[in-house]
């Protein structure tokens, strides 16, 4: 009797653990691959990848982002643009700004902002400003939709300037500001 009860408890515990797993999400995380060489996990890592796949409510990252992404300089090369101000406004009029680091990454933690979608976005640096043509419906990762190459289901990565030029990459960046994006030209 005691053994049966123990077995039942063990089975219930296994079921409870199994029901918490999400194989689809696990596959999405796995599909991102490992960290790039010489770029440790942190503010500079995984430029161009969809941030909230890991930094969302299902983890595995501990820090959760409301919105995050990467701004590159031009539309062809994946060179991060530093100091771009990302201005966001949600459906209730609540606003947040974030600024990109030297690989182009920016993020807003959920502890700081929980936007009511849709969200409108504008990026600005100096005299250059670009407004996103459509709104964000619900996706916190800019790079989920803005991926390379431009195709039927993506307008390509986000860039500060609409046409590629030969602007020098950011200096004094602790890691390479050039992201390795599949499909980037």
């Amino acid at each position, binding site marked *: 009797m005691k053994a049966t009860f123990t077995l039942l408890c063990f089975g219930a515990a296994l079921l409870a653990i199994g029901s918490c797993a999400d194989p689809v999400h696990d596959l999405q995380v796995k599909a991102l691959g490992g960290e790039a060489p010489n770029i440790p996990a942190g503010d500079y890592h995984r430029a161009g990848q969809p941030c909230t796949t890991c930094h969302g409510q299902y983890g595995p990252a501990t820090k959760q982002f409301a919105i995050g992404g990467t701004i590159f300089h031009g539309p062809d090369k994946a060179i991060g643009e530093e100091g771009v101000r990302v201005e966001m406004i949600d*459906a209730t009029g609540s606003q947040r700004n974030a600024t990109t680091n030297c690989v182009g990454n920016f993020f807003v933690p959920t502890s700081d902002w929980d936007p009511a979608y849709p969200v409108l976005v504008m990026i600005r640096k100096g005299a250059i400003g670009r407004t996103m*043509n459509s709104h964000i419906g*619900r996706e916190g990762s800019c790079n*989920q939709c803005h991926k390379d190459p*431009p*195709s*039927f289901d993506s307008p390509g990565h986000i860039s500060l300037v609409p046409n590629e030029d030969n602007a020098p990459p950011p200096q004094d960046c602790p890691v390479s500001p050039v992201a390795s994006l599949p499909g980037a030209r």
Partner: protein
Amino acid sequence: MKISRESARASEAIDVRRVAASACVLGFLAIAACVSVPDKDRQTYVGPLANGQTLAPDFTLYKSGPDAYLGKRCSTLDCHGQLGRGLRIFSPQGLRAFDASGAGYFPLTSGKDLESDDEKRQNFLSVVGLEPEVMTQVMSNGGADPQKLLLLKKPLLYEGHKGGQVMVDISDPGYKCLASWLQGALDQDACDKSLLVR
């Protein structure tokens, strides 16, 4: 005495089997009684009405307003601009259509090319085919009660909508645009205004 007890048990077992078998037969009969008999005179009519009208909403009117509204408001790549959506909407800034008539590839790029006529037609079919029966009911009544459709129930949040409340109420320009289209008298002004809301 022992033989008599075993005999009684065997008899009881047989009775139980008989009762179970009878219950099964009765159950089958009950289920069979619920099955309707095919009615050869009952038909579903698809096609123009006697007066020449059709029960489908007008495609030409759809192209003049509702398509642009749905494209702007619903078709982002993270919402209805996805192939798996029940209501899938193609748009210039979102998902682009597969070219089934030509070489069989995606010839248009998101955020770059203008919307094609084929995309508008496919959007129309997506909207009309979302709930074919309800759409037919609504159209057979001249579009008098468009709120029966998920197309309007969800954005009004009369029913759960992952994208939240898109239309404030029935005075929303987007609602007026879609409802007037279904009623066959497009409110172009409302459609134009619906595009100004960001």
